[in-house]
């Protein structure tokens, strides 16, 4: 702490950073909470530091502090942020404005939301360079086109003329990286840049980002919750939890020899033992040659899809976004009547439309969604939410219903104390548990789980998967498990259907589907799942047989 002078080669030196925010809990006096507790870090020029941790760990908050930015009333209340030898926190508003977009640039998680829909891409890419006067328009555009090329975007000369909605998500993420690089900053903050992408697209974007960092010698803070991803791009990794430093070390040390228990838990997160069950003789639900489209469109979202689900077993449906996974769920539940084909449940054909199905059929098929918080009425208590299907399907009332609600809360490993809570008072994992309890309340034979763990932190998601497996043992319920995450599939499935552009390209028992020889798409999907291994990215890119669909 003695020398305030920066060491040569040191770009960013954050010392004892403390970040606070004021929260307004309902019915209580506002209180100040500390989000980041005295965290220090240093970053040399041209190096990449990975910040990793679950949500609420303070990773983004720390990342944004290097630009003097606090999201939604977050305040930096202590410590120093020394960038290029000066404490930026002393520079005031004007000082922040000068360094943002010039010395430090930011790449957001969802480029689709982070680009202004009203302006052409090129205008947005060169905006910061023009604003800070680091280049003329012609120079900046030339640089942008060169960057588009480097990031292997299609039509680099003309892609800048497009509007954000005319470009795919993976491409937008690369354009955003080009936007950050265009003003030739010293530091880029990557905030979960590949989290919102499909695995097959993620690998391309990751490779593009890695090359761009290497070739431009820019330093980077790479924020993510996925250790396998960060292991591919960083020189060092810092593990954070609840706004405190857990462990900081070289990438190899963190993933091979973690010293802290929490880091170890992150490293081994996906290892759930699940013994595959053999398919029975008669399926409980059969999807037979279903073809479906939205709004009478010519584009068929499902093309002649047939799958079977056996009692008490799990069928995992995998594929990237737009492959028709969720549409399959909608066709099964009757939300989207198929144009051709049928859904057979317990030996009888179900009505195509939701309104043609009796209440009993509705009860047998329940759904759990990705976004637990929007799937619940925010003005109802947990007790009301879980009690509703009990009233609706079984006519339970009063004490009988309350008793059953308590049992269900027990099953999802949440105590009685939660009955009177509102969804807003629960964590992400708890919300998803309540949704699970609500679907179980109907005593269904099949629960459709649509990306139920995608929005959760790895450790929390792991807990949910274990819970679902336990519940399957107890309740003998079958799952149709929709996901894009192959690690999840390995942990939970008995059989797997791989979907690609509305078709089932591979289908069978888990062991059969995951044993070579693979078809081209399954191979791409499997080889795109990041592995916790240094150098995996280069190997995977070199060994690929087909381009991903988002490219």
């Amino acid at each position: 702490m003695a020398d305030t002078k920066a060491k040569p080669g040191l770009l960013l030196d954050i010392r004892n950073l403390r970040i606070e925010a004021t929260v307004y809990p309902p019915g209580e006096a506002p209180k100040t909470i500390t989000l980041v507790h005295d965290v220090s870090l240093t970053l040399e020029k041209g190096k990449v530091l990975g910040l990793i941790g679950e949500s609420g760990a303070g990773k983004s908050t720390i990342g944004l502090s290097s630009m003097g930015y606090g999201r939604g009333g977050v305040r930096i209340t202590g410590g120093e942020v020394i960038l290029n030898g000066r404490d930026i926190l002393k520079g005031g508003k004007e000082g922040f404005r000068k360094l943002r977009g010039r010395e430090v640039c930011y790449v957001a998680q969802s480029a689709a939301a982070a680009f202004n829909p009203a302006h052409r891409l090129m205008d947005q890419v060169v905006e910061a360079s023009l604003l800070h006067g680091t280049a003329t328009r012609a120079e900046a555009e030339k640089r942008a086109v060169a960057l588009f090329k480097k990031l292997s975007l299609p039509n680099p000369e003309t892609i800048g003329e497009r509007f954000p909605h005319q470009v795919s998500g993976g491409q937008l993420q690369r354009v955003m990286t080009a936007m950050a690089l265009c003003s030739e900053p010293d530091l880029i903050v990557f905030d979960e840049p590949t989290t919102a992408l499909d695995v097959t697209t993620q690998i391309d974007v990751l490779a593009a980002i890695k090359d761009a960092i290497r070739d431009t010698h820019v330093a980077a803070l790479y924020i993510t919750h996925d250790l396998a991803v960060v292991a591919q791009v960083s020189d060092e990794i810092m593990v954070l939890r609840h706004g405190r430093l857990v462990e900081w070390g070289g990438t190899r040390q963190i993933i091979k020899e973690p010293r802290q228990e929490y880091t170890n838990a992150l490293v081994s997160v996906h290892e759930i033992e699940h013994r595959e069950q053999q398919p029975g003789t008669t399926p409980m639900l059969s999807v037979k040659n279903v073809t479906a489209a939205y709004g009478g469109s010519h584009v068929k979202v499902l093309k002649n899809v047939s799958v079977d689900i056996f009692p008490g077993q799990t069928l995992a449906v995998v594929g990237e976004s737009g492959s028709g996974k969720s549409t399959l769920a909608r066709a099964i539940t009757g939300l989207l009547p198929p144009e051709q084909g049928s859904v057979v449940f317990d030996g009888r054909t179900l009505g195509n439309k939701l309104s043609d199905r009796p209440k009993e059929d509705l009860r047998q098929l329940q759904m759990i969604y990705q976004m637990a918080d929007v799937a619940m009425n925010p003005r109802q208590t947990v007790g009301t939410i879980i009690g509703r299907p009990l009233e609706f399907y079984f006519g339970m009332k009063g004490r009988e219903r309350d008793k059953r609600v308590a049992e269900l809360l027990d099953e999802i490993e949440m105590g009685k104390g939660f009955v009177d809570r509102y969804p807003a008072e629960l964590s992400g994992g708890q919300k998803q548990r309540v949704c699970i309890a609500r679907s179980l309340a109907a005593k269904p034979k099949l629960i459709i789980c649509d990306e139920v763990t995608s929005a959760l932190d790895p450790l929390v998601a792991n807990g949910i998967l274990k819970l679902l497996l336990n519940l399957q043992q107890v309740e003998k319920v079958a799952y149709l498990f929709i996901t894009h995450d192959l690690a999840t599939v390995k942990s939970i499935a008995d059989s797997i259907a791989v979907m690609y552009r509305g078709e089932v390209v591979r289908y069978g028992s888990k062991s059969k589907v995951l044993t070579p020889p693979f078809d081209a798409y399954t191979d791409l999907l499997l080889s795109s799942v990041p592995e916790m291994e240094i150098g995996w990215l280069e190997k995977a890119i070199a060994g690929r047989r087909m381009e991903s669909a988002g490219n």
Partner: protein
Amino acid sequence: MSSPIVKLVAQRIALGILLLLAVSVLIFAGTQILPGDVAQAILGQSATPESLANLREQLGLNQPAYIRYFHWLGGVLTGDLGTAMSSGQDIATSIRERLWNTLFLAFWAAIVAIPLAITLGLIAVRYRNGWVDKLISGVALASTSFPEFFIGYLLVFYFAVEHQWFPAISTVYEGMSLGERLQAIALPAAALTLVVLAHMMRMTRAAILNVMQSAYVETAELKGLSGFAVIRKHAFPNAIAPIINVVMLNLAYLVVGVVVVEVIFVYPGMGQYLVDHVTKRDVPVVQAVGLIFAAVYITLNIIADIGAIVANPRLRHPK
């Protein structure tokens, strides 16, 4: 222009025409439901059953209502709005000048009010929740809360009686120069501006604030743009659709809702004309003015719809 826009715009226009037809039916039906008819109104106290029957025969009132409706509609479509009962003058001729006067007043009120409201809205967002924002919102709200006749008389008292800068009565006649006309309508235009200002300003503020939550606004801030540049370049273009809507709604009010202000300032516009003839129970005039007001309303709302469609880059530049 690309096909989805053309299709959407054509749909809106067709819908507008349909709506106008429906309104014309309503206006016609409404005036039929009223007790008494034109013949009774003309003859008044001196009506005998025989003279009434004669006049009805003469005016074609014995024909079924739907035939009279189509007759009226046909006249309207060819520019013949009928004759006023009270004066016997051709309605179309008397309306032409008055409509022009009303549009003139509305135009100048709009020229002042719309940019002012939007600028104030932008400023309010820039200094949101600070004293500037509260001052703008407070003053604008106060000016809207006062009824327009009160504002009108206040303006007359201050600017016409105390200081005699502007005339209290806005007489306009043929042969006036533009400058003279503008001076004549200064006070009613000011009154109208004050009435519509707050609504537009507050909606602009709300629409932009809504957009300020977006991730792309954060992106702009993280590029180092100043507060006002973020609002102007990144928030405003995405808030344009709701703003156009509220602007058009207020424009329609400027044309249709000026009745009270025109009466206060004795301005020879449509509002005055309407009020005069309502008191005289001159049904053909009321019908004609009602139809014109409806047409203005519908046209402006179609423009708002089209504006919102055109402002959407997803429709302007399809994939």
